[in-house]
């Protein structure tokens, strides 16, 4: 940068000066192409392959690129390793801006090229790093092998060697690459072509049919032969601690509202009897009894559910179902509370998408583990936990609109998966 960019302006008019400029180009490009210092940036799986590539087996140091800088100000190459989410995007752009020029960007893996596995039904992933920053080299793969990364590095090297100070390095432009749109357009274009072809071929086909009325194709698709395997029944290893029926009996004695969903003519007892030995007991309990039931099983000596596995929810048409998964470290049994929460019907239709639709008391004072899990449920479903100390969105930005895990969630960035 800087002075050498003036070299062609001064030297090119001088006779023989262009050879000097060429020489400068050669030296500068040689230095830049052979000393590429990457920035330590990795968000997910590709980062591990990037790390692997700098380890003993593959050794990126052979290319002189082992100097992974933690500070963007000293880096030349931005290896985007891993998915970029909308929440991470500003940070990514800032990192890129902080790098001094000339800087290069290598998009590693399917996520950073096109969104990869996160194309359909996704509200949080940026589909392609090119939408944010200009990308020089693409290395497809999920994740690419270290060799593929090296191939990307060599490709970048070739690219740098073609530069000249007559047209010095400048910041490229970001591109709006809506891969999905392109896919659809291509498919549409093909359909159009097909139509034209159909029309064109109609005559030839008719003629062909006339000539070969009993035409049979010689092509016989051969199905892949699959090996035959025996059918094997599953064996359930029984859990320790109280059995499901014992637990249920004890619970129902205390909370008459506790049931197990039974379909058809099966009785509740029969359902429990038929449960697999290693399946946890899932008890449906009324929302009013929820907190006292959790308290009861935590403190009761025969239950002593001291360990909270998880809190999550399911969205049904008219209600949520809050699942509180508990386990006893002491005994070893598991108990899942399913609490149906009626959706608040008073909220007008247009506000439902952004409103908290249900309310339930928190259990985070009983289980500190529930604090973050309940925040997750709040974030994803819009269920309010009364009494929660710190009820903020956890995974999404505070200005994100809507609750993604509701079945009716829509987002302008989301592409529906074709059925």
């Amino acid at each position, binding site marked *: 940068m800087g002075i050498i960019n003036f070299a062609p302006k001064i030297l090119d008019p001088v006779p023989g000066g262009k050879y000097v400029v060429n020489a400068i180009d050669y030296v500068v490009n040689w230095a830049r192409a052979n000393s590429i210092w990457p920035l330590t940036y990795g968000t997910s799986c590709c980062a591990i392959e990037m790390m692997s590539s700098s380890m003993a087996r593959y050794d990126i140091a052979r290319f002189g690129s082992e100097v992974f800088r933690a500070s963007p100000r000293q880096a030349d190459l931005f290896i985007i390793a891993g998915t970029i989410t909308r929440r991470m995007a500003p940070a990514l752009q800032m990192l890129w801006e902080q790098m001094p020029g000339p800087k290069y960007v290598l998009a590693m893996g399917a996520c950073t090229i096109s969104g990869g596995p996160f194309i359909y039904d996704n509200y949080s992933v940026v589909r392609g790093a090119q939408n944010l920053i200009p990308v020089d080299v*693409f290395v497809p793969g999920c994740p690419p092998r270290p060799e593929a990364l090296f*191939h990307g590095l060599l490709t970048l090297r070739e690219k740098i060697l073609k530069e000249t100070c007559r047209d010095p390095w400048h910041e490229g432009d970001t591109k709006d690459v809506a891969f999905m749109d392109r896919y659809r357009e291509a498919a549409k274009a093909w359909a159009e072509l097909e139509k034209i072809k159909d029309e064109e071929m109609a005559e030839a086909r008719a003629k062909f049919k006339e000539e070969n009325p009993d035409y049979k194709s010689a092509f016989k698709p051969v199905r892949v032969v699959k090996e035959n395997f025996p059918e094997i029944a599953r064996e359930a290893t029984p859990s320790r601690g109280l059995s499901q029926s014992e637990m249920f009996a004890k619970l129902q004695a205390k909370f008459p509202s506790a049931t197990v969903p039974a379909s058809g003519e099966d009785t509740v007892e029969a359902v429990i009897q038929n449960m697999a030995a290693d399946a946890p007991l899932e008890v449906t309990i009324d929302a009013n009894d929820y907190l006292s039931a959790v308290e009861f099983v935590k403190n009761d000596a025969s239950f002593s559910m001291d360990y909270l596995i998880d809190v999550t929810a399911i969205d049904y048409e008219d209600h949520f179902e809050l699942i509180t998964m508990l386990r006893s470290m002491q005994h070893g049994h598991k108990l899942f509370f399913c609490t149906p929460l009626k959706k608040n019907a008073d909220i007008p239709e247009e506000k439902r998408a952004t409103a908290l639709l249900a309310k339930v008391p928190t259990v985070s004072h009983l289980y500190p583990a529930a604090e973050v899990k309940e925040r997750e449920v709040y974030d994803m479903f819009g269920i309010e936990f009364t009494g929660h100390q710190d009820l903020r969105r956890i995974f999404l930005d505070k200005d994100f609109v809507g609750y993604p895990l509701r079945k009716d969630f829509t987002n302008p960035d989301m592409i529906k998966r074709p059925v």
Partner: protein
Amino acid sequence: MTERITTKQYIKRYLKRCITGPWSLMCGLSVTLKYFFNPKRIVTEQYPENRKTLKMHERYRGRLQMVEDADGNNHCTACGMCERACPNASINVQPTKNIAGKKVLGRYVYHFASCTQCGLCVEACPFGAIRMCQEFEVATTDSSTLEMILNKKEGQG
């Protein structure tokens, strides 16, 4: 960790650490010295130089490829099982009609950019018409080259 110990114990422990501490550091140093002076322990594979001998495993999942015979014919019947099995729209099977009016494969569009090489398409294909090839040198500076048409010929039928 507030452990109550007497001064005597403290001094004893302190002196013990004065011996064991440096010794532990020497042990660490002995490992690095051993590795430093033993070039046989170097495990590095030099990628661009070993290109000739470098072969991926048979099951390695690289880019998708059409299984073709010597004449370039493929086994695809354009049934679209692979397209349905693909988690992220990397495959677009565009059928056409051949001269006999039968549905055959027109273009097998493969979007390498979004392919995660999970291999579900290969698993789903009932006729073994596609496979994952062993190619791994796939970097490019032009993202439009990542969109490819796999079949060279129309499907048979």
